[in-house]
């Protein structure tokens, strides 16, 4: 668990202030705020269609917010040009809901792909092959290096995607529904793997999920996204014992 002394404004690695996003008449984010501290696992929970994925995509510049500020390691990404954003993205890992492995490439090529773009960052580091093998070993899939994504199971795909995320050794990892679509045993394995990764790489993690078990095991804090705003923030214990009916609805499953 994250040490309490880490919760200070100096240790904020990601901060969202007053984020607004709408699609036509549908207001998805309506003044959303968030703070992620160094070494923290922050879980964002919300109903399907509540704007969790939209929010996480805004954080890496995949979607443009209507207004508000997003500060990643003290850089406001809404004001960065494309080149600066690409450099900053090397420090942000993103695990997509459906793994998003490149179908036409082998597992090895999938992992090599981010390295081609960020060679400067890794110039003095190990050679590509060693980095790919090390990342795959950290998710227990070194034997799958020459397989195609179509030959992998759902759980294996998620692990390879995590290895691809880890290969640039990001400081922040964003997980979009990391356990969705997986059976309970594989989901548990992925959660354990996420914890191992956090210990090994000392990353800060923002995890989007509606899996209460996942939130209970992995979270330092939980943020509830309801009606486009950060409705409640707190530890699992605090929120799961709350009397607020909207909060209760999440934990009564």
């Amino acid at each position, binding site marked *: 668990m994250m040490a309490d002394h880490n919760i200070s404004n100096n240790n904020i690695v990601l901060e969202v202030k007053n984020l607004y996003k709408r699609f036509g008449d549908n207001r998805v984010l309506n003044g959303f705020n968030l703070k992620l501290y160094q070494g923290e696992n922050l879980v964002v929970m919300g109903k399907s269609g509540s704007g969790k994925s939209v929010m996480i995509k805004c954080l890496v510049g995949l979607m443009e917010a209507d207004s508000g500020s997003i500060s990643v390691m003290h850089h406001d990404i809404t004001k960065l040009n494309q080149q600066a954003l690409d450099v900053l*993205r090397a420090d942000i890992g993103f695990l997509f809901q459906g793994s998003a492995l490149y179908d036409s490439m082998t597992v090895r090529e999938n992992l090599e792909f*981010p390295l*081609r773009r*960020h060679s400067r960052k890794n110039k003095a580091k190990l050679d590509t092959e060693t980095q790919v093998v090390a990342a795959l070993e950290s998710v227990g899939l070194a034997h799958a290096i020459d397989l195609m994504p179509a030959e992998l199971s759902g759980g294996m795909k998620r692990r390879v995607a995590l290895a691809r995320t880890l290969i640039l050794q990001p400081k922040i990892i964003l997980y979009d529904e990391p356990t969705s679509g997986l059976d309970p045993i594989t989901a548990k394995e992925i959660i354990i793997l996420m914890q191992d990764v956090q210990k090994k790489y000392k990353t800060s993690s923002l995890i989007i999920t509606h899996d209460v078990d996942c939130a209970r095991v992995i979270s330092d804090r939980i943020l509830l996204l309801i009606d486009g705003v950060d409705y409640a923030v707190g530890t699992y214990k605090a929120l799961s014992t709350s009397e607020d009916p909207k909060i209760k609805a999440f934990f009564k499953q």
Partner: protein
Amino acid sequence: MYLSNGLIKGMLGLYNIKVQLNAFLKEIGELTYFTVRFFREVFKRPFEFKELLRQCYNMGNRSLFLVGITGFIIGLVLTLQTRPTLLEFGAVSWMPSMVGISIVREIGPIITALVCAGRIGSGIGAELGSMRVTEQIEAMEVSGTNPFKYLVVTRVLAVTLMLPLLVIVGDAIALLGSYLVENVKGNVSFMLYLNQVFNALEFGDIIPATIKTFFFGLAIGLVGCFKGYYCKNGTAGVGIAANSAVVFSSLLLFIIDFIAVFVTDIFYDL
């Protein structure tokens, strides 16, 4: 106010035409913007040579068989169908010249381009569409790669470069097919046939026909990429992207062909 059913139907019909016309014009506008972006990105670093070569191989080599078979059959059929008419006028000796000119100027380029629109255009539309709906394009962007540069520029360039080569191969095989018919029916030697074909052809036939194939390739690549890159509505959208890539690029091919012939004709008159 009372409106008759016929009037209401007519007004609805007009409204539908307006909606469809708006959608069509919007699509043309977006495709134009996409094209402008392609030309802006094509000269920017980094140049994805490895991916470009891979795409050239995929599109060129893997379309060769289809283009060859189509060309061969077109050559055979064109000669078989035209021969009786030319015989009737005692002009059968003009057969190689006629077939040569029609294949090199028009039939070879347009048929090869249509075959490639079906094979390559739909392939690009489906591939990029499925990459879009499975978030692979977003994953590429997050990893710091410009997906437009890596996926679109390389594919459009590959089709633009490969199509003229495929047309040349297709033309050659079509002429071979035509020769086989001539040889069987009229006992014409290969050298005589070839001499007659090349005596009839001028640079004015070959150059414009080759230039327009670059534009055909560009159109197939741009439309295929455009439809796939902006694919929506999940897996159903992938099918729509592949299908509309073929329909739209085929239509564009005929428009480009018309313009090319029109411009060539003006130069001939000068």
